[in-house]
């Protein structure tokens, strides 16, 4: 149900659980950046606005000011329940970043087509879709992606090391199209 009393309220974005944690982390990051500015940029002449060091200073100072104000506004606002559950959600998502990196490392070794099929099937199973229709859809999707991007559009994805073990004719075909 919409509780907004004014039209302006309809367009506001309100805080969510975990806001304070993010505000603290961002302010700490901004302070770290500010502390390293002296060693990371050089002032070489007197023309301040043309200096390569000017924009890093501007951006870090703005980050510091805004993140401090953001933290103050978070601290001044009432606590929203579920802060640590939310942080738990963020941490759980790292699992899928790891899945992604495993896929990235698989492709140059096993080849784009085999890696994509294996990855799609493994991740689909991990997500709990173990029925034949989902596994079949995942396989078809994996083949479709490779056909569109590698075979048809010829995007730059290297052939797999494993293709080296194929007979000459099949090897060059696989390296070019899959």
């Amino acid at each position: 149900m919409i509780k907004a009393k004014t039209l302006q309220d309809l367009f506001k974005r309100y805080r969510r659980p975990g806001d304070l944690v993010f505000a603290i982390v961002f302010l700490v990051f901004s302070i770290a950046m500010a502390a390293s500015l002296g060693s990371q940029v050089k002032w070489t002449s007197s023309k301040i606005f043309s200096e390569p060091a000017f924009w890093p200073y501007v951006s870090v100072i703005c980050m510091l000011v805004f993140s401090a104000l953001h933290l103050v506004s978070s601290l001044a606002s009432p606590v929203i329940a579920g802060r640590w559950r939310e942080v738990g959600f963020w941490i759980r998502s790292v699992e899928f970043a790891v899945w992604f990196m495993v896929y990235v490392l698989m492709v140059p070794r096993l080849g784009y087509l085999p890696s994509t099929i294996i990855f799609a099937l493994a991740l689909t199973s991990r997500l709990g879709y173990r029925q034949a229709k989902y596994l079949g859809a995942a396989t078809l999707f994996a083949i479709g992606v490779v056909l569109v991007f590698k075979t048809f559009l010829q995007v730059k994805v290297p052939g797999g090391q494993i293709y080296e073990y194929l007979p000459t004719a099949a090897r060059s075909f696989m390296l070019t199209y899959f």
Partner: protein
Amino acid sequence: MDTILSGVELLMRWDVMAALLIGSIGGVIIGAIPGVGAAVAIAILLPATFSLDPIVGLTILLGIYGSSMYGGALPAILINTPGTAVNALTTYDGYPMTKRGEARRALALAYGASFWGGVFGILCLILLSPLLALIAPHFGSREIFLAALLGIILVVLAHRGQVFAAGMLAAFGILLHTVGLDVKYNQRMTFDQSWLTGGFNLIVVVLGLFALSQAFLLLTDKDNTPEPQPITGSILSGMKELWVYRKVATAAGSFGVLMGMVPGVGEFTAQFLSYTYARKQSKTPELFGDGAPEGLIASEAANNAVPAAAMIPLLALGIPGEALTAMMLSVFYVHNVIPGPQLFQNQLDFVYALYIAMLLLNVIVMVFLIFSTNLLTKIIQVPTRFLGMIILILSFVGVYSLRNSVVDCVIASAFGLLGLVLKRLNLPLVPIILGMVLGGIMEVKLRSSMVRVKTPLDFVERPIAAILALMILLVIAMHIRTLVKEHKTRLAEADIDHDLHDTQQR
């Protein structure tokens, strides 16, 4: 007229036509699936379009950009879940109409208003283009710097209730741009790390923030399968009712064009203004938020008029106003087509070709929607976690095909996790991207403009520069005035529904 015909000629190729068809129909489908917005699709497709002709690549991306909002109205009306972020307002009046058993009427009005807004926006721009070609050359370094600065300020202030967060994220975007070798080949913010010497690639950051974050979000979150009811009856016949509300649709389209032209503003402000206007003009303002056809029309006509208008600062000045046009800017650069005053002066036919392509895509989308709405209701029934797997695999193509770099993939993953946190907190991603792009433009233009500037007043001695500087001051003053006014009428914290908006999660 010759220039327009020359523009038409540029489009008369099978590959351009195929791109138009794929982009517009693909855009509708992408927009209709809750969880995949145009930003995700464009981010994934960007590297693939680099190998295509600029006109072909841009036609696909424009197709997705212009048509995704049509598709996004479908789940907004049928299941109260906006397909794209800018369809959020459509749910306020669209879904109550569905609950009243008027789903077909709501869809017909939404499609009709979208078409009206889209075509109105493009026609305005075709008429405005000769004027822009006259004005654009008067934008020198100072003016472009001030326009970019105005864009950054507006994008921060436009995030109502999150101005501090938007400010720190825009500054973070500018910081990202500064990482790497500077113009004097000194290391800048690299921390002696060789992988930072080349700086952060915009496309890697975009893919992480928009595509990978969405995949991680869908994969980690609970599963959900949208189940809209099929629509009975003809959509086409329902569109005739739009004629009754033509004034609202035209006014909303005008707001869309005006707001689309201003960098950093875009769909939300256009919707805000047109919704306010529609409610003031309505004989039944109490129905707004409870199934008012005018509210639905105002929302859809305004947001569909924006894409064409958003191309103005991009093409005429080389300044993107929001994330999607920032992504398109990279396509221009890859093909060595530099948007800016020169483009409007020397390649006006190319500009017209893009506008005509947008006009055609609106027609294609309408025909597709009239006959395929029920098909779309079936397509969108993909379980969300399965959809996450699909986006993850597609994101790989985007990131890895760029330079075959594992480091790029690690960076994109890191930005994916940052994007997930921001989306969960409902904080905006767009300021980071605009900070990166506009930060680069501001640095270059400020440096080149300082050569002729002796005193601070020299900076604003030219009329356009003076107008832009005044606009910056005016925008800040107006924001402070609004804050004071709102402070007096604010809601108590306990009355605020913090889950009202999840517009950053698509």
